[in-house]
């Protein structure tokens, strides 16, 4: 079996995990999670990041990742669990009382793989920047990755961080923006048009590249590896990754309706039928 096929099978199982987590507690955010399944799979399974499931908060001598748009916790939890950070069975506790799998990711309950709390939007890039500067001080040549939502870029703190990163040549940082064009109240175009994102990042001094289909595993892997090759050259690297919200579950695609809504029993069955079990359900 080709490596890409293996990764696609992994992603299919992750989509099942997302649907089942959210369905069980009738809450959570399936849309953005499904759209970023290939991205997380590429990072943690596709060889993009050198990372250590024997989790160490400091992350010295490994690549580290920060999720800024924390509401897509279901995909993060599934990929971390299936990458060995914590037992896959623990996905059963998503959003339940006394769980380490809080609605939005947090360090507070000590869940391995999480290095900061996120959920209140716009903060992750700054934290990733600080971690990237710490790596430079520590003479650690590994990279810092961050994922941001596109709607999240409406938060001003991002632009403070974007300005700082370029102005200070933080070139060990790869920030990926999930361009799914959707946010809670509708499309980004109707809620608050943000204009040309590529031109904006470039104007701030970033090296910007694009992944045209962020739900195509091969493109995601190639794109992120290309981004890695652009690090260490004086500029922070931005990856504008176009995805389809709800990808892989036909009735959830191309709409903001499933941003924060769980499927009912029937919808779950439909979604699972479209994503047959590959690695075994938890």
């Amino acid at each position, binding site marked *: 079996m080709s490596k890409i096929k293996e990764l696609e099978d992994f992603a299919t199982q992750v989509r099942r995990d997302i649907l089942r987590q959210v369905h069980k507690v009738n809450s959570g955010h399936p849309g953005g999670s499904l759209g970023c399944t290939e991205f997380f799979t590429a990072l943690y399974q596709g060889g993009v990041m050198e990372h250590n499931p024997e989790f160490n908060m400091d992350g010295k001598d490994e690549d580290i990742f920060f999720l800024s748009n924390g509401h897509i916790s279901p995909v993060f939890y599934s990929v971390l669990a299936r990458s060995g950070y914590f037992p896959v069975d623990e996905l059963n506790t998503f959003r339940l009382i006394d769980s380490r799998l809080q609605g939005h990711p*947090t*360090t507070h309950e000590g869940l391995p793989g999480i290095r900061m709390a996120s959920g209140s939007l716009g903060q992750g890039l700054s934290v990733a920047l600080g971690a990237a500067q710490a790596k430079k001080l520590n003479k650690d040549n590994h990279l810092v990755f961050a994922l941001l939502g596109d709607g999240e870029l409406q938060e001003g703190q991002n632009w403070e961080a974007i*300005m700082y990163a370029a102005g200070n040549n933080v070139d060990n940082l790869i920030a990926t923006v999930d361009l799914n064009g959707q946010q809670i109240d509708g499309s980004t175009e109707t809620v608050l048009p943000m204009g040309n994102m590529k031109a904006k990042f470039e104007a701030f001094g970033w090296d910007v590249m694009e992944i045209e289909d962020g739900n195509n595993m091969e493109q995601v892997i190639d794109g992120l590896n290309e981004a890695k090759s652009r690090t260490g050259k004086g500029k922070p690297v931005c990856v504008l990754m176009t995805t389809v919200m709800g990808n892989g579950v036909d009735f959830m695609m191309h709409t903001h309706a499933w941003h924060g809504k769980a499927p009912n029993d029937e919808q779950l069955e439909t979604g699972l039928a479209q994503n047959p079990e590959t690695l075994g359900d938890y």
Partner: protein
Amino acid sequence: MNSAQATETTKNKRMKTYIDTGKKDTRSGFGEGLTELGRTNPNVVALCADLIGSLKMQDFIDENPDRFFQTGIAEANMMGMAAGLTVGGKIPFAGTFANFATGRVYDQIRQSIAYSGKNVKICASHSGVTLGEDGATHQILEDIGLMKMLPGMTVINTCDFNQTKAATIAIAEHDGPVYLRFGRPKVANFTAEDQKFEIGKAVQLYEGTDVTIIATGHLVWEAIQAAQQLSEKGISAEVINIHTIKPLDEKAIIDSVKKTGCVVTAEEHNFLGGLGESVARTLAENNPAPQEFVATQDTFGESGTPDQLMAKYGLNAEAIIKATEKVLKRK
């Protein structure tokens, strides 16, 4: 003789005399402490949002240029970066004015630092009305309340140069987020130069039997002046310097008020949310007693000199004496 520890005897043969060894600003105490940390602790890094001179950080920067991060006028990003620097083992000291170090970035501190359990030291200068002529936009009187409400946050408000320097050095050894509050004006420097700063440990300045005066920050020196004047009127005041508002040294407060039966709290902060309310809660739970609050009364500040503002907003020795006379009548 160590003048700060001097025990000259006053007329009444009872009062210890605290000597002002020369007025100095508490922010310079922070700057000196940070410089010392730069030499002794390689993990200490510093950040500032375009206020290096005001925060007295230049010496640290000159000696450790690679360990300093100038974020520009972007406090939200500064707090986030500070959180990130801890991932990698750094101990970040993030400095700006108290207003911009708290209210402006409350959610960044809440999520990225406090809830995330990050070992960040938030260093807040120019707190309270004694910032002076810049006026209310810059004079935060709500910051102690904001910070003490955050789970896991240690809140410290130092009273003079020596104590601020000692506190700056001490918090580097404490694992967890800290809010260190200090000020702009030159004020009496009267605590020991070689003091050991213990987080959460009250410092008794005078023993007394009639009233307990609990003060923090710039009001500690005023409390000393008040106690001396009260002594001349035959009133014996116990004075406690509370530099750590959270965790509060509850035992010291309860033990003292059990003895004196009433309390005056004094702080350069709104009476809502400040030290006074923490003391009131402690006493309500353990040893209810009459209390008067020397604090601002739910108001913004305004332009003026520090002394004028302290007088106008009732934050000086005279106000403490009045509050004491009032609370004694309620015993």
